[in-house]
């Protein structure tokens, strides 16, 4: 017989008294699933003890941070305990001379960068919703933004992790130094795992100086096809942009340079020359307030409901994939918009329309992009869409090992069950 919520709470009275555990409310729901209990530990050891208890009681545990990606991944099963990182939110240490920082999972990116900013440094991750997205959530989803072009994704920046295993044991891997090959790299294994292997307690990253100067070129082109020469002109040059973004429709390329004044000016000028020679598009160079507006506009395209796909292709196949998407969507009455890392050929697609048609399009796109040559993952979608298409899709040859890793870490499959890739 299932233990009642009150009986469960009674088992953990000390935590309840400390305000770390309380009954779940609808506002605590993870992808619509309301947890019976919410735990909000303030320290790693406390989090570990709560997980240990949940493990002994064989309770299903879901993890939540800032709540910006709760509908990402597959729909979760019933959740007994929602483990929230809301109160585990300190910047533990910013070693500015070493360009590293250790940060608890629940800190938001905005909070982190306020602290790092004191020494004119930042954690160079700019995914959507920085004021709410937490470090734990960004690592768990390996999410990133335009700056990934130069600085990399969370998996490129993480150098150490403290994690709580599903059985509650606290383990660490990596360290606080930027170069370190001692032991298996569990930091990277946790990155992008959607919390399926353990709960991130804190993570240590390489951080970087804030650039003193910045310019952004905006190139508006007549068609998606015209992106090809524009992009080629930048990528084949020896320019060192910090971001190369696309946005369709219309057919826009954003190229950003961040460095010292002179370097930024000269590179922006060189890039403008190359773009004008390669296209007949309009090239605008923005700085200061105008530049902030360009990026705010770019980011605002995110704050729209609908399905969100993450698509990766070979660089050479980027534009042909975009035109294929446009043509297919036109034919099937779907609305699509694409946005993302043009220089890396990794981008997001927003999709709207009947669930069946969306499912068909996603399947067809997956056929076009076999594992290795690309991938299509449904990040966010309504339940209707997720009923007709698996959000993760094929994981390739590695799937067997991935399942075995999950089983070794979480033999009862109780942690974030169902949501992640395994």
């Amino acid at each position, binding site marked *: 017989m299932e233990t009642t919520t009150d009986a469960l709470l009674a088992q953990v009275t000390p935590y309840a008294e400390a305000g770390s555990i309380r009954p779940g409310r609808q506002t605590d729901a993870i992808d619509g699933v309301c947890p019976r209990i919410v735990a909000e530990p303030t320290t790693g050891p406390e989090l570990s003890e709560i997980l240990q208890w949940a493990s002994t009681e064989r309770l299903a545990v879901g993890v939540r941070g800032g709540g910006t990606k709760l509908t990402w991944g597959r729909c979760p099963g019933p959740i007994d305990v929602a483990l929230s990182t809301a109160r585990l939110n300190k910047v533990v240490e910013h*070693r500015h001379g070493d360009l590293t920082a250790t940060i608890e999972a629940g800190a938001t990116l905005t909070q982190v960068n306020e602290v790092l900013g004191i020494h004119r440094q930042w954690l160079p991750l700019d995914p959507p919703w920085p004021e709410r997205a937490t470090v734990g959530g960004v690592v768990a989803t390996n999410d990133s933004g335009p700056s990934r072009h130069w600085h990399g994704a969370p998996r490129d920046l993480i150098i150490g992790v403290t994690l709580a295993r599903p059985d509650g*044991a606290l383990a*660490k891997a990596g360290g606080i130094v930027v170069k*370190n090959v001692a032991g298996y790299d569990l930091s990277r294994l946790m990155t992008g795992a959607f919390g399926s292997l353990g709960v991130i307690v804190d993570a240590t990253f390489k951080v*970087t100086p804030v650039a003193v100067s910045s310019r952004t070129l905006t190139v508006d082109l007549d068609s998606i096809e015209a992106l090809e020469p524009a992009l080629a002109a930048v990528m084949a040059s020896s*320019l060192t942009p910090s971001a190369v973004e696309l946005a369709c429709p219309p057919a826009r390329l954003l190229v950003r340079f961040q460095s010292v004044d002179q370097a930024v000016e000269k590179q922006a000028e060189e890039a403008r020359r190359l773009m004008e020679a390669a296209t007949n598009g309009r090239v605008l160079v923005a700085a200061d307030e105008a530049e902030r507006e360009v990026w705010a506009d770019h980011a605002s395209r995110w704050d729209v409901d609908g399905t969100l796909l993450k698509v990766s292709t070979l660089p050479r196949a980027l534009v042909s994939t975009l035109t294929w998407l446009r043509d297919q969507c036109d034919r099937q009455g779907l609305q699509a918009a694409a946005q993302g890392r043009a220089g890396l050929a990794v981008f997001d697609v927003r999709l709207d329309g009947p669930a069946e048609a969306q499912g068909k399009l996603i399947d067809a796109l997956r056929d076009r992009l076999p594992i290795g040559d690309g991938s299509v993952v449904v990040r966010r979608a309504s339940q209707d869409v997720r009923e007709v298409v*698996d959000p993760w899709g094929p994981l390739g*040859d590695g799937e067997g090992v991935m399942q075995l890793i999950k089983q070794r870490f979480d*033999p009862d499959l109780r942690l974030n069950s169902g949501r992640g890739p395994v």
Partner: protein
Amino acid sequence: MDTSLISALTEIVGADHVVTNDAERATYDTDGLAKLRSTPGLVVLPGTAAEVQQVVRSCHDAGVPFVARGQGTGLSGGALPHPDGVLIVMTRLNRILDLDIANRRITVEPGITNLEVTNAAAPHGYYYAPDPSSQVICSIGGNVAENSGGAHCLKYGFTVHHVVGVEAVLPDGEMVRIGGPALDPPGLDLLGVLVGSEGTLAVVTKVTLRLLRKPASVKTLLAAFDSTEAAGNAVSGIIAEGIIPAAVEMMDRMTIEASEAAVHPNFPQAEALLIVELDGAEAEVTELFDGVTRVCQEAHAKEIRIAESEEQRARFWLGRKAAFAAMGRVSPSYYVQDGVIPRTRLPEVLRRIRELGDEAGLRIGNVFHAGDGNLHPLVCYDDRVDGQADLAERVANDILTICLDVGGSITGEHGVGADKAKHMPKMFTDVDLDTMQLVRCAFDPNHLCNPDKIFPTPRLCGEVPGPYRQHPAEAAGLAARL
């Protein structure tokens, strides 16, 4: 070794590529770390990925351990053979399979050397960024196993940042492709954990790497200082300016002299030398270079030389990269240590290392990647003097303790291998190590793939724990287990 396994493997790779006789097998008994020796039970040199797969499968079926070996330049005994096992030498798999400039990728077999990759891309204006000092001879497969770095990883990262896909044979003989030329393969980051796993999780048979555009401008300077502390302060000063150079390398008097004797780079006489290299857009390099020069002057550099030509720059690097090998000129034997510290602790740690050497009566040379705090102290000794080798090893171990004291690591790029497994408990708790070995158990529950490396105490894996559960995708009717 079981004769039926020997015949099976001979059948697979051909009699010409099997080494059975004692004397020849003994030539494989060590990698770059000569103090550890173990003659392999059998040596095979497969010529194709398919042969590697069959070899691994045969070993697995026979329950015989196997160790993959590239060029054997590793410095932690990571490729130390197993006396009752098969050594799989990968050097015949040395082809470039696909140079794909349009996608900025190259796919190679693991036996090819690091430098050959860059050489293949160079005519197109591209290069492969990680550049370990042994790049002329070390193999890409070994780089993948060790997550090799090099002088330029300060700015460009390590092997793990540049490998986008591999084909690998799992310890049970299954061949898998993980990742590929496109970024972000879905699912768990298997590449992230495979790269740097020191050959304990799989045998890699193909590697797809990112290529980078050659920088528009490269400027390199050499700054001479009266003390390693002053040079260390200059390194901190450069970082504090917000400058991330492509490389910041330091050498001390002993390694400068050794290098001078061996390859004559014409370095200035000094207690410490910094080599600082900036690369990128012309204007950026010019402006930041002025900043670096100023910081070095403020840190009391007594001489600053700027490479005026590519030839002179190459000479600076020759002097740096030859330093390890050159130590033979100044000491009969030396112990190469590899430890990491937070770079702000450089002056303090260098002082403590010097004190250790003084107490033991041994000379310690220092040549290292100062920008990322990766030290390579060279503890000199004379193995003809009784007890000196042991003393040198003790001093080298004490250096690791210092690194850990200040929050560092026992290895930055040489790996744990067979040599440092005993030090792992100083850096990690039992739970940490146990958790890492959950990964090992998922890949290699029978401990056949390069056993006895990294972990001081192997974990008993047992059966895959837990009951079979239907996967959510299966439940939804979206996928099936075949």
